């Protein structure tokens, strides 16, 4: 495994987006992973539509019938991958732009599908496996506890205490061998996370959190998706 890795350096990550006041983080994490997988499969980076997921994905958890993806009221990336696979794929952002509201009807046009899911899987709670899947399959969808993110401005977040209850969906795009932690006077390996709160949050829209301790639950809900190779 390389010491440092960042899919942004390989052109597999679209610009930071902004979910606005809508609990649709799960859809941004989903499109980010499929955008990366589609790039790996085709060499083409396409910004995909979160609004299609917000309006059209009401996939339910097979075991909990009342737990369904529901637009601005939350969802789950693996359920969204399941919807995307059944629906045939996602259309481009420009063909189904994001509004940040979930009152609209589903306006999915199958003829405009830009990226399709071949399959998706869950990565074990093992940092090396997460890094290996990241390098091999592209950016990963992850859940995290966002309690420190409301006040985060920059640096490597490595709280002394952090809950592992997951409440936010983000995209893991890379990792670094060490970001200098002035207080602890040592390098700390960290994950590089793309968020969906716009570029005027965090480090140009990105968040760094230390590796090695399942910090804030970041290692506990990791999923990877592979896209269908279209010639």
């Amino acid at each position, binding site marked *: 495994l390389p010491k440092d890795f960042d899919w942004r350096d390989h052109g597999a990550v679209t610009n930071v987006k902004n979910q606005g006041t809508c609990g649709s983080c799960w859809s941004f994490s989903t499109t980010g992973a499929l955008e990366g997988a589609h790039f790996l499969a085709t060499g083409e980076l396409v910004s995909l539509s979160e609004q299609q997921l917000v309006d059209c994905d009401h996939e339910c958890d097979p075991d*909990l019938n009342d737990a369904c993806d529901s637009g601005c009221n939350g969802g789950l990336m693996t359920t969204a991958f399941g919807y995307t696979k059944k629906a045939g794929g996602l259309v481009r952002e420009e063909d189904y732009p994001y509004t940040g509201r979930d009152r609209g009807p589903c306006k999915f046009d199958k003829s405009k599908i830009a990226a399709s899911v071949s399959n998706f*899987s869950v990565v074990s709670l093992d940092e090396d496996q997460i890094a290996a899947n990241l390098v091999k399959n592209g950016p990963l969808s992850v859940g995290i506890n966002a309690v420190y993110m409301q006040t985060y401005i920059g640096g490597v977040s490595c709280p002394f205490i952090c809950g592992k209850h997951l409440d936010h969906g983000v995209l893991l795009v890379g990792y670094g061998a060490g970001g200098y932690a002035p*207080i602890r006077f040592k390098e700390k390996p960290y994950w590089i996370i793309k968020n969906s709160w716009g570029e005027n949050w965090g480090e140009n829209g990105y968040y760094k959190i230390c590796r090695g301790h399942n910090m804030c639950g970041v290692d506990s809900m990791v999923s990877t998706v592979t896209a269908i190779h279209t010639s």
Partner: protein
Amino acid sequence: DDNILIRQVVEDGDEHLLNAEHHFSAFKTKFSKTYATKEEHDYRFGVFKSNLLRAKSHQELDPSAIHGVTKFSDLTPSEFRSQFLGLKPLSLPSDAHNAPILPTDN
């Protein structure tokens, strides 16, 4: 009274956040925040002051990061969670299978 050289002009303790008004004014300018009524404005200033204290405690608990005023500093933690998060940690769908174990040496 003549021999009082230094007179304390701010209350003790954390409840007084030096320059909170200044921070709030900078926050409103930076993030183009406006409030419909004076009541709303004063309420949001109160929330902002609590979030200043939260940022201070986050900084103590998370010294390797930088914490402070962000565009969410006028939201209560529950408003922040309901408006800007949105992960439903359902159990994983049955068709989500486990990724094969990958080699991680060389």
